[in-house]
C-alpha cells in the first residue's frame, strides 16, 4: 500500500503567495434542499441544528453547510467524505449545476452567483470542465465526437474540433479507438474519454466528481497515475471529489474532509494523518500507513553538533519510510538537509514514534479546528 507520490508533492508552496487570487474562493456556502430552503442559512437557530433535527423541524436537507475554502492555482484540491456528506453537491455548486442557497463562490475573483446565463455558459464552456462518476458520455456518438462535443457546443468548426479532439484522445492513451462508441469500451476507457472531453476545451480548472469510484481497483490505480501525470505535465488546477481516503492521500495537495455537509478538517495529507482535528478524522485515518504519508520534517529533532556533520542526507520532503530505510542502512541517525543546510536529524527513536503515532516530535503542526476561522493550511 504505497500511498505517497513524493516526487510530485512540492516541497513547499511558496509559489502561491497569499496575495495571488485563488482560482475558486468559496465563502460561507450553503445548499439546502426542501421547502423554504432559503430561510435555513439566514436563521442562526435553524442553521445550528443537526441534520436530523433540521429535517424534522423544516423538512429540509442541508447538503452543504457553511463551507469556506480557497482553491489555489495549480494545486490538486481534494474534497473527501463518505456518501451523503455533501461533497458532490459542493462541486456542483462551483459552476452552479446546483444552485447554491447562500454564500459566495468566486472564480478568479469574479462572483459566480451573480453571473447571468450567458456569462455562466461562458464559464462552463471555457473555464471549468467536469469529469463525472458514470462518465456521462453520449452513447450515439463515437469516441472522437464525444471528445469534440464540448468544442461543438462552443461552435467550433467540424474539422478543427476533430483535429483537436484527436489530439486529446491520443493524450489519454486511446489512439486508434476514435471511431468506437462508448458502448464498446471498458469502464476505464470510457472515463479516459470523459477526461479527454474535459481536457479538450482547455479549461482553467478540472472538476472531478468521484471519477474512478465505478472502476475496478487496478484500473482505478492506472487512472490515478494518469491524473498525476497530467497534473505534472500541465500543472492544471484540479478539484477532485472522492470517498476513497487512499485516493485523496495519493492525489491531494490539500484535502478538505467533509462530514454532514461541513468541512471538519482542511490540510495537507500529512496534517490530516499526523494531527487529526477530531475523533472522527482520527478514526478515519487510523489504518493509514503513517510512514508513507508523514515526512521527516515532522519526525526530526534538532541536531547536535556532531550529528550535523555526518550521516546520510535526506530532503525535508522525504517520507518517513524512506528515512527508515536510510537509517537502517547506515546504522546511524540521518540528517535532514534543506538547501545544503542541516535543519535536523532523525534517528530510529523519532521514526518509530511517528510510525506508532505517539510522536513527541518537536512541534505539533497544521491541525485546524473544525469550526475555527479559515484554516490556514498554507504553512507546512
Amino acid at each position, binding site marked *: 500500500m504505497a500511498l505517497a507520490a513524493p516526487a510530485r508533492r512540492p516541497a513547499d508552496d511558496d509559489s502561491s503567495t497569499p496575495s495571488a487570487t485563488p482560482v475558486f474562493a468559496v465563502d460561507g456556502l450553503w445548499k439546502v434542499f426542501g421547502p423554504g430552503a432559503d430561510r435555513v442559512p439566514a436563521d442562526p437557530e435553524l442553521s445550528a441544528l443537526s441534520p436530523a433535527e433540521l429535517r424534522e423541524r423544516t423538512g429540509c436537507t442541508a447538503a452543504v453547510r457553511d463551507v469556506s475554502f480557497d482553491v489555489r492555482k495549480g494545486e490538486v484540491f481534494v474534497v473527501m467524505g463518505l456518501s451523503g456528506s455533501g461533497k458532490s453537491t459542493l462541486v456542483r455548486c462551483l*459552476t452552479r*449545476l446546483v444552485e447554491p442557497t447562500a454564500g459566495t463562490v468566486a472564480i478568479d475573483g469574479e462572483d459566480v452567483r451573480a453571473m447571468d446565463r450567458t456569462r*455562466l*455558459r*461562458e*464559464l*462552463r*464552456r*471555457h473555464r471549468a*470542465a*467536469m469529469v*463525472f*462518476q*458514470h*462518465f*456521462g*458520455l*453520449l*452513447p*450515439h*456518438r463515437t469516441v472522437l465526437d464525444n471528445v469534440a*462535443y*464540448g468544442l*461543438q*457546443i*462552443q461552435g467550433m468548426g467540424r474539422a478543427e474540433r476533430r483535429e483537436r479532439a484527436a489530439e486529446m484522445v491520443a493524450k489519454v492513451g486511446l489512439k486508434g479507438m476514435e471511431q468506437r*462508441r462508448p*458502448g464498446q469500451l471498458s469502464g476505464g476507457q470510457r472515463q479516459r474519454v*470523459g477526461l479527454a*472531453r474535459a481536457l479538450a*476545451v482547455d479549461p482553467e480548472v478540472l*472538476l472531478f466528481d468521484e471519477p474512478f469510484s465505478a472502476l475496478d481497483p487496478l484500473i482505478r490505480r492506472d487512472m490515478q497515475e494518469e491524473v498525476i501525470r497530467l497534473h505534472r505535465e500541465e500543472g492544471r488546477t484540479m478539484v477532485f471529489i472522492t470517498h476513497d481516503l487512499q485516493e485523496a492521500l495519493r492525489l491531494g495537495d490539500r484535502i478538505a474532509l467533509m462530514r454532514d455537509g461541513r468541512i471538519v478538517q482542511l490540510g495537507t495529507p500529512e496534517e490530516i494523518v499526523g494531527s487529526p482535528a477530531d475523533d472522527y478524522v482520527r478514526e478515519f485515518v487510523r489504518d493509514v500507513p503513517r510512514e508513507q504519508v508523514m515526512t521527516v520534517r515532522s519526525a526530526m529533532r534538532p541536531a547536535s553538533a556532531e550529528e550535523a556533520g555526518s550521516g546520510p542526507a535526506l530532503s525535508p520532503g522525504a517520507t518517513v519510510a524512506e528515512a527508515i530505510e536510510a537509517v537502517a542502512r547506515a546504522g546511524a541517525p540521518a540528517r535532514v538537509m534543506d538547501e545544503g543546510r542541516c535543519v535536523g536529524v532523525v534517528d530510529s527513536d523519532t521514526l518509530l514514534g511517528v510510525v506508532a503515532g505517539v510522536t513527541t516530535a518537536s512541534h505539533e503542526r497544521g491541525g485546524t479546528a473544525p469550526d475555527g476561522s479559515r484554516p490556514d493550511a498554507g504553512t507546512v
Partner: protein
Amino acid sequence: MAALTTTTPRTAAPGVLGHRAARKLAVLAVLAAVLVPLAHLRWAGGTWPEALTVDLSGPLGAAGDWIIDNRDSHPLFLYFFGHVSNAVVVSVRAVYLTLLAAGWAGVTAAAALIAWRAAGPRLAAGTTAAFLVCGLLGMWVPTMQTLALMVVAVLASVVVGALLGLAAGLSDRMDRALRPVLDTMQVLPAFAYLLPVVLVFGIGVPAAVLATVIYAAPPMARLTALGLRGADKEVLEAVDSLGATARQRLLTARVPLARKELLLGVNQTIMMALSMAVIASVIGAGGLGDRVYQALASVDVGAALAAGIPIVLLAVVLDRVTGAAGGSLGQEKRGPRLWLYAAGAAAATAAVALAARLRGRPEWPTGWTVDIAGPVNRAVDWMTAHLYSGVPYIGGTADWAGRFTTWVLDPIRSGLLWLPWWAVLLAVAAAAWLIGTWRTALTAVLAMAAIGVLGVWKPSLDTLSQVLAAVAVTLVLGFATGIAAARSDRFERLLRPVLDVFQTMPQFVYLIPVVALFGVGRAPAAAAAVVYALPAVVRITAQGLRQVDPAALESARSLGATSAQQLRQVQLPLARPALLLAVNQGVVLVLAVVIIGGLVGGGALGYDVVFGLARGDLTTGLVAGAAIVCLGLMLDRVTQPAQRSARKGAGHGTA
C-alpha cells in the same frame, strides 16, 4: 362478474391480500347496506331504472343536424375542417397517384431497396415477395389505396405524436395533463373513434385518415415523452456542465438519447395505423379493408381471404422492416452516405418504373392474377358440409359455436341482466378495489353508471357478457400456454415466431377465419377476440414468470421444493404484477375485437355503431360509441393493479 371473480383468486395469492382485501370488502358492504335499500326502494327491478336515464337522442340528433346543415356554410367548417379535409384528400390522392405512376415494378423495387437498407437482404427478398403476392391475388390497386392512406396517416400521426410527446417530455405540467388522456386513449377500442369523426367530416377518406391519426398518434406521443424523460440524468448534467444552450441540449442530447423510443414509437404508430386504416373501411377508407368488409357482409370467405392476405403481408413487412431499423441503430454510419443512398434508391426506382412503363405495363398485368376466392369458397363449402356439424364424437365447429352460445354466453348474459343494476355496480366496485385503489374503483363505477344513464344498459351488458366469456377462455388458455412456455425453452422457441406474426396482424383480419369456421353470431366474435388477445397474454405471462428473481427460485430449489411447489409458491406470487398486467391487456384486447364482432353478428354495441353508420343514424351510433368508451374505461380500471400495492404484494411474497 363471474369470470372476473373466479380469476382473481388465482392471480392474487390469498395470504398476501387477505387482510387488506377483507377490510376493503367490509367497507364496501357497509356502504352497500346503507345505499342499496334506498336505491331498491325507489328504483326496484333488474335493469337500469328508466328514471335515471337521460335521453340523448334529441340533443344529439339536433347537434348532428346542425353540423350537417352548416357543414358548407359555417366558418368553423369553411376555414378549419374544410381545409383539413381538403389537405387530406389532396395528399392521399397525390400519394396514390405517385404509387400508381411508379407502377407495380417501381413500387416493389422501392420497397425492396428501403427494406434492404433498413434491414438487410433477407427482408428485402421478403418484401419483394409480399408485394408480388399482393399483385398475384389481384389486389394491387386496393393495396395501393390502403398504402396511400397509410402513408399520409402515419406521417400526420408521427408529426402530431412527436410534437405532443415533445411537449410532455419537456414540461411536467403538460405531462400531467396529457398522460391520463393518452393512457385512456390507448385502451379504447378503435370503433369508438369512428363516429365523432364521421359526425364532423362525413363518411369518406378525410374521416378515415383522421380517425387513423387519432388512433395511431398516442403511442408516438407516449414513447416520445418516455424517451425524453428517460434520458440518463448524468449525461444531461455533463451536457450542461459543458455550457450547452437549451436548444443544443435538446437537439444534441435529449432527442438522440431518445432515438430508440422514437423508432419504437414509429413502429407502433405504423402498426396501429394499419389496423385502423383497415377498420376505417367502415367509414369510407376504401382499399383492402373495404374488400374484406364487403366480402364479410356477404359471407364470401374466399374474397375476404384474398384481401386479408395482403393485409397480413403488409403488416408483417412493415413491422419487421421498421423493427429492424430500430434494432440496427447505432451500428450504422450516418451522415452524407444516407442521402447518397436515398438518391441512389430513388434513381433505381425511377429507372425500374420507367422500364416497366416503356414496356407498357404500369399496372399489374391481368393475366398474372390467381383467383383464390373460388377454391377457398369451395373448401369452405366442403367444410360447411362436413365439419360444421355431425362429426362423430367431437361434433362440428358450428355445434361448438352453438354450445358455447347456449352454455356459456347465454347464461352469462341472462345472469348479468337478471342481476339488479346496483348489484352489477357493487361487483364492479369490489373487483376494481380488490385489484387497484379506491380511485380506480370509483372511476370504474362511474363509467358503468354512465352506461346506464346513456340508456344502453342492455346492449352493454350483452357486450360485457361476451367480453367476460372470451376473457375467461383467453386467460385459461393464455396462462396455461404462458406457464408452459416459461418452463420449456424448446416450446418457447417454437412459439415465438407464431406469436410474432399473430401480434402484428390487424384486428380486422381475425374475423375472416372464424367466419369460415363458425359462421356468424356471437360465438365467432368471441372466438376472434380470444385468438387476438391470446398472444399478448401468453407473452406477458411467460416473460413475467421468466423474470422472477433467480435467487428466490434457487433458494426454493435448495430447500427441496418440487417444481409444482416452485411454481405455486415462488414463481406465480412473484410474477403477480405481470399476471395482472396480462389480465388487463387481455381484457382491453378482447373488448376491441368483441366490438368489431358487431360486423359478423356479434350484435350489441358494435352492431349499434355499424348500424348507426350504415343508416346515417348518428345518434344511435354516438350513444353506442360513448358506451364503448365507458365500458373500455370500466374494464381497464377494474383490472388495473395499483402500482404500489402490487409491488408491496410481491415484496411480501419474498419475505
